[in-house]
């Protein structure tokens, strides 16, 4: 047995983090009231936005402390989508935030840079061809990896540009509907992550299979990780993601502080 102080594996990890060699990258956006949540038709149920009410701030309400009450939907800001979120994943085992085995919250990440394409076309869709070309250069996606789609969309700090809504819905990049089954069957990914407000493209509601990323990923007990930031700081292969959602009973997801470990 080794422990974190005797030169064992964990000791090496901590040494890398504190002494150099391993960078910790924050992939999380700040939760604040103007963080947009996904827009649903007005006659449907709506996700609560992030809201904060001060309990006290070293004042008559509590002279010693500053703290807040929070409210928000499970899918607010950078968040983790559990399989139970979608109808296709509703009956799977270990499909909710409280029942997913915790070792699944640490996984390798592959990052494919689509920032130029997304800049040219907000409706850009990531295809299998593009991933295979990427694999030729960076190697095959290892099993149980996250596939993260870098678009630099998170650099859009104006909520209007970030949501990019029009009368026919949102216009934000995402995966092509044919890509998802291949990612699951041929590459066995643990999930799909991206920078936009949801893992599906803005126009995905109009696809032949609406919301294919949600439908197939969650239907196969895989996860989603939308609204990430700082993907430009990750290598194409080799980063390790730490993604534990809050342990909410039968939670369909939760805001998550997503961290990446990167060997420098």
């Amino acid at each position, binding site marked *: 047995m080794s422990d974190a102080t005797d030169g064992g594996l964990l000791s090496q990890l901590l040494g890398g983090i504190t002494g150099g060699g391993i960078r910790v990258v924050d992939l999380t956006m700040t939760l604040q*009231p*103007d963080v*947009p949540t996904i*827009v649903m038709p007005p*006659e449907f*149920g*709506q996700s*609560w*936005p992030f*809201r*904060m*009410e*001060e309990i006290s701030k070293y004042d008559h309400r509590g002279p010693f402390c500053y703290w807040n009450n929070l409210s928000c939907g499970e899918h607010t800001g950078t968040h983790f989508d559990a399989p139970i979120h979608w109808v296709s994943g509703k009956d799977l085992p270990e499909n909710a935030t409280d029942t997913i085995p915790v070792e699944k919250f640490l996984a390798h990440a592959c990052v494919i840079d689509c920032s130029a394409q997304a800049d040219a076309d907000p409706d850009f869709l990531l295809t299998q061809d593009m991933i295979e070309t990427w694999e030729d250069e960076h190697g095959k996606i290892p099993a149980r990896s996250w596939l993260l789609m870098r678009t630099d969309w998170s650099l859009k700090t104006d*909520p*209007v540009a*970030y*949501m*990019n*809504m*029009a*009368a026919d819905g949102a216009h934000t990049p995402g995966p092509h509907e044919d890509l998802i089954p291949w990612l699951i069957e041929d590459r066995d990914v643990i999930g799909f992550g991206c920078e936009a407000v949801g893992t599906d493209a803005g126009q995905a509601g109009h696809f032949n299979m609406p919301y294919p990323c949600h439908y197939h990923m969650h239907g196969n007990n895989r996860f989603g990780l939308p609204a990430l930031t700082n993907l430009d700081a990750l290598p194409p292969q080799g980063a390790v993601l730490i993604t534990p959602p809050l342990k909410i009973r039968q939670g369909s997801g939760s805001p998550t502080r997503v961290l990446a470990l990167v060997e420098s």
Partner: protein
Amino acid sequence: MTTPLPPPKKKDPVARTRMPAQPPGNRSREAQGLTAMAAVGRFALQTCADCGQVQYPPRQICGQCLGDDLPWRDVDPSGSLIAETKLHHANDLFFRDRVPWRLGVVGMDAGPSVVAHLAEDCRQGDRVKLSLNLDRGGHAVMNARPETPGPNQMDDMQLRELSMDPKDRRVLIVNGKTELALALAQGFKAAGAREIFVGHAEPWKASASLEAIRGMAGVTLFPLDVTDTDSVGELAAVLGGKVEILINNSYHLRPGGAVDRMDMNVSREEMDIHYFGLLRLAGTFGPAMRGRGADGEHGACAWVNVLSAYAQVNNPAFGTYSASQAAARSLAQCLRAEMAPGGVRVVNAYVGPLDDEWHQMVPPPKLGPDTVAGRIIKALQQGHEDLAIGAVAEEIAERLAENPKEIEREIKL
């Protein structure tokens, strides 16, 4: 002729703001009957059911026949000015700040002679028209104006103390994303508002009304989300010292009741926007506006809540919405009492069904935005406190006064 209103000046940053003193406020229970009439813009006096005598001031019994059945009836507001005088000195703080002040005695065609506040362009012997108006303390007073209005009549300084005229005042419209907001912005502009500020939430959701407002001259848009305490506080920090008329037109209607549509999220959103939203606005804009209630000719004067007529009686087709409106109405009464010491009037506009996407299945009559905006602005000019807008709201008010149980059982409006 009435002296024209001087144009508003930029505030002197080192001058002490005039404190909002109150006009004398003691009224008997009977005299509060006048307040009820003034609040809705009626000119009604006690009229003896036995002998027909029109009585003023209000008393417990008839001054002529001692009868005690004294219903309030609308009476002819016309009369002749018997005597006029100008008050040059007052020990009362409110009038001391505002002398000279004109007063007169009017012989009413309906019988009584009354002491009334007197417009600048009335002369002894003139025919005059009386109105009951609320003063800065919220109590009814008699006011006399020429039978035929002269130029600049609305500029009369005494009348301006009794009204909430938008002319040369700065207006905040809280929710810019409705058709009513556009109609209000256009209406206030036509009524001579000095500046119009318009709030808007969730900018990523487009709104044709907001885009039309954005293109108007003299209108400035500000981010404002009444469900976000920080957002409301931040805007109050920017605009609190400028807003003289605040229009809370927050609106979030979703059909459904408690049994047929149990949905905590929808009900909570309604409460968050209508009730807590008003609370957030009150706690942030209220203190600043109350402090400027006597800040010259253009001081803060009005807080308008656009409420549903169903705030007064629940329509189960819009059951939880009605309940949230009732909560807002109750809070508005609290706000009215808290704003009164500043002389800022809280106006509740009860609106019937609007002709919008959330009333698709409601049969006519439905209200267009121009009608609602026009009535609100007119009520401000005339100094009313409660107004029912549209046939449905008017009928609800009448039937509630007549038999509240009847309308509770039969509401199908």
